[in-house]
């Protein structure tokens, strides 16, 4: 009896198992036919844009395409997937990931013809060039600018001092509550602080002869950087920069009319238009008698994954398809960021005056360093900024940050 039960159980269990893998096999077979010829990963903002072009891609490339949205930590997820068996074929991300993606063997260089290279904004092409190789096809360029409420401040300021004087007057008249909205936050924000730092003479990394950033020449902690932070400290004391203004409230402060000046990028324009604020975009002003307040240039690019299963299709897509004007313009129409392709930029410039203004604000902007050493800068630099805006001693803070960064880089 017992043996019988056991026998029945084993038989039934095996039958179930077999039927289980039977259906598994079938699913595999079905999937073979419809297995995507190309898998694209993008963040949750860009994935829908690409998804809307999917059928067009498919008919023109002749393969099926799957667009997957990765809403969080796209870079880290991509690197992890590249180790395993699940790597996508194409990834869309910021050019400053390149250093890390290359050291992890996650992306391959993209071979562009000279004619294709000539079609790009040279700064964008420079940004995706790493160790002499082009690692991505750039499609959009973005940088910070000064956005001002033209009802409150009709004139573009010529310098920071000029802007602060106007802002103080507006505040005294009760028209605004804050002088400037430039996000700092409790732990600082190196990206938004950089234009001021650069204007006052500071730099992050020196550049080698070939234009690459040189991790051996760290600018933080040099006398220039301390002088630059002295200027930032003054702005903190005057209340122009505040740690209470962070990423969560900097754009709302401007759209609610609580401040006349905002330092932000193309991503802020949508909210501003929705709020109906009259605005103008101009270059971020520098300190009086000092350098230009150049922001960092960020370039959104298409990357070819090293470990993808359909690398040739990915190369075809990135090197020969993304680089064409129609797609670049279409991507712009779906998500208005300044196109990196000159032909496309010129085409949409006529209908969108903001584009040229952002481009002007980004003239001469250095690309965000893509070397892996840059990730050692963000956190300590931001914290130093926040402490200094809060009134901490400048020399001590900057030297402390320099030690932390230096230690992290040497290791």
């Amino acid at each position, binding site marked *: 009896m017992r043996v019988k039960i056991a026998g029945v159980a084993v038989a039934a269990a095996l039958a179930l198992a077999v039927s289980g893998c039977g259906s*598994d096999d079938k699913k595999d077979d079905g999937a073979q036919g419809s297995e995507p010829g190309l898998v694209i990963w993008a963040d949750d903002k860009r994935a829908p844009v690409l998804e809307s072009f999917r059928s067009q891609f498919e008919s023109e490339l002749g*393969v099926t395409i799957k667009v997957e949205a990765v809403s969080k930590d796209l870079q880290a997820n991509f690197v992890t997937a590249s180790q395993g068996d699940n790597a996508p074929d194409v990834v869309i991300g910021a050019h400053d990931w390149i250093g890390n993606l290359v050291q992890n063997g996650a992306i*391959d260089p993209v071979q562009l013809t000279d004619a294709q290279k000539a079609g790009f904004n040279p700064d964008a092409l420079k940004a995706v060039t790493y160790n002499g190789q082009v690692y991505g096809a750039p499609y959009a360029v973005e940088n910070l600018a000064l956005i001002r409420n033209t009802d409150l401040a009709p004139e573009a300021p010529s310098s920071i001092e000029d802007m602060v004087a106007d802002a103080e007057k507006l505040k005294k008249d009760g028209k605004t509550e804050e002088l400037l909205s430039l996000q700092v936050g409790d*732990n600082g924000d190196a990206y938004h602080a950089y234009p001021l730092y650069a204007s006052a003479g500071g730099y992050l990394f020196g550049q080698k002869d070939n234009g690459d950033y040189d991790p051996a020449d760290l600018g933080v902690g040099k006398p220039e950087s301390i002088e630059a932070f002295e200027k930032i400290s003054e702005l903190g004391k005057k209340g122009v920069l505040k740690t*209470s203004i962070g990423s969560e409230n900097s754009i709302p402060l401007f759209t609610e009319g609580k401040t006349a000046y905002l330092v932000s990028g193309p991503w802020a324009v949508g909210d501003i238009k929705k709020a109906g604020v009259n605005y103008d975009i101009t270059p971020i002003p520098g300190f009086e008698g000092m350098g230009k307040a150049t922001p960092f240039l960020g370039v959104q690019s298409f990357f070819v994954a090293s470990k993808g299963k359909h690398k040739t*299709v990915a190369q075809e897509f990135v090197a020969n398809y993304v680089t064409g004007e129609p797609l670049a313009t279409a991507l712009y129409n779906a998500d208005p960021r300044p196109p990196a392709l000159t032909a496309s930029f010129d085409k949409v410039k006529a209908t969108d005056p903001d584009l040229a203004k952002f481009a002007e604000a980004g003239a001469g902007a250095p690309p965000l360093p893509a070397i892996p050493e840059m990730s050692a800068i963000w956190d300590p630099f931001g914290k130093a900024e926040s402490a200094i805006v809060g009134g901490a001693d400048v020399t001590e803070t900057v030297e402390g940050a320099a030690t932390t960064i230096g230690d992290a880089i040497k290791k």
Partner: protein
Amino acid sequence: MDAVQTASRQRSKQGYAGSGLTGLVVRITLLGVVAALAVWAVLPLIGARSWIGVGVVAAATALLFWIYLSPNRRLPLKYLIPGTLLLIAFQIVPVLYTLSTSVTNFGDGHRGDKDEAIVSIETASITQVPGSPEYDLAIAADGEDALVFILSDPASGKYWAGNAEGLRDLAPTDVQKGLSGKITEAEGYTILTAAEAAERSQEITDLAVPVDGGGIRANGLSRAFQGTSARAYDEGCDCVRDAVTGQVWTADPGHGYFTDAAGESLPQGWQVSVGADNFTRVITDDKVRGPFLSVLWWNFAFAIISVLVTFVLGLLCAIALHKERLRFKALYRTLMVLPYAMPAFAMLLIWRDMFNQDFGLINTMFGLDVGWFSNPWTARFAVILVQLWLGFPYMFLVSTGALQSIPTETLEAAKIDGATGFQAFRRVTLPLLLVSLTPLLIMSFAFNFNNFNAIQLTTGGGPFEAGNSTVGGTDLLITYTYRLAFGGQGAEYGFAASVSVFIFLIVATVSAIGFRVTRNQEEVYR
């Protein structure tokens, strides 16, 4: 007595007989699921030729079948085995994996093995030969289904067929072009469609048609270029040599890098075992060891205070609502549990905004101008306050449950013996409560000791003193080490794992002591 025993035996027999059929069906179904899972797990393992993995799965499946198909003799095992398997899968394996990671340099730049690093270095050094033509490409197969590149140079109007052996001229008459200029037919070859080519992607990537000064490689499906790989691995010297500059990088098996004479390394490294290096770094590196103690005391304070204040408030609320004749009791209880029902992740961010110095609700409402997160003590107060709000509903729930399980007779007896309300609480209720709640308090301590979100999402570990951006006023060990391990040049999983081992030891020690104390307590009050 005998009658009772017989009856109970009968009942158990009946119960067994009654559950016979359903039991059997359930058993067969569950074992079927186990077998199906095993087959599902084994197939990829066989594919990867991981015979140890196959052995483990087979042994575990056989064990399960043996236990559940054998007679009731092994009854205790039947109850123990699911828990044990889950314990192994979700506790012991992760701990072992963390331990094994902690002796490696696994992290950004050291993820794959040496071969992958070499492939990556060689691929990254492929450049187009200057002045070489740009080819139009069609991917084709010859009579034996071997891959062939049909190439054309639009500038000179010449055509070739290329495979691993080399180039062969094609007469222009042998090639048909479509309207878009794409090659659609070539005499003697079958042009592959994009989908067909996509399936042979790896083959296409591997094919380089040898020509003078490099190889012609596909760049996508419609173009090809003549490229050379400047850097190549040389097994003889275990080094990578750059053919253009003559630079040599020698493998450093201790660190998993190719390093040149000047000590500069190529970015692509590989994973190696570094022995106890990560642990020695925790103990000897001043940057790590120095702040360790100062972080440790606050970490203990945070965990203990969080548990205590949430417990006291939760218990008080539970006692207040324990009154028999209170009206709207259910309503109060629901309101009380609300914070527990909201996602902590979002609540932490909202609390962070409420503590904003200029725009936060707290300062605005009370007319204050406190920079909550800019002074270590106010920041510590603020995070504990947030913990209190988030944590007391849980304590309220468990206290209510424990209170309801204390028999009223005990308290009545105490009253008859002349105890005041407070005395009865202090001497009778609280000790009885603690017997059942202490394990939960210890668990809560262990959870709060590693409560990453509570700090990272509110203060981010801050405020940071001037000149010290590595350790902040509210940093816990976990947030501090997170910054150390992931804040530098990319992630260092090996190092992070070694710090996790230390944290694990601390929490394990504290919990072990706590449970020992509880056991003694139980014996006292039994």
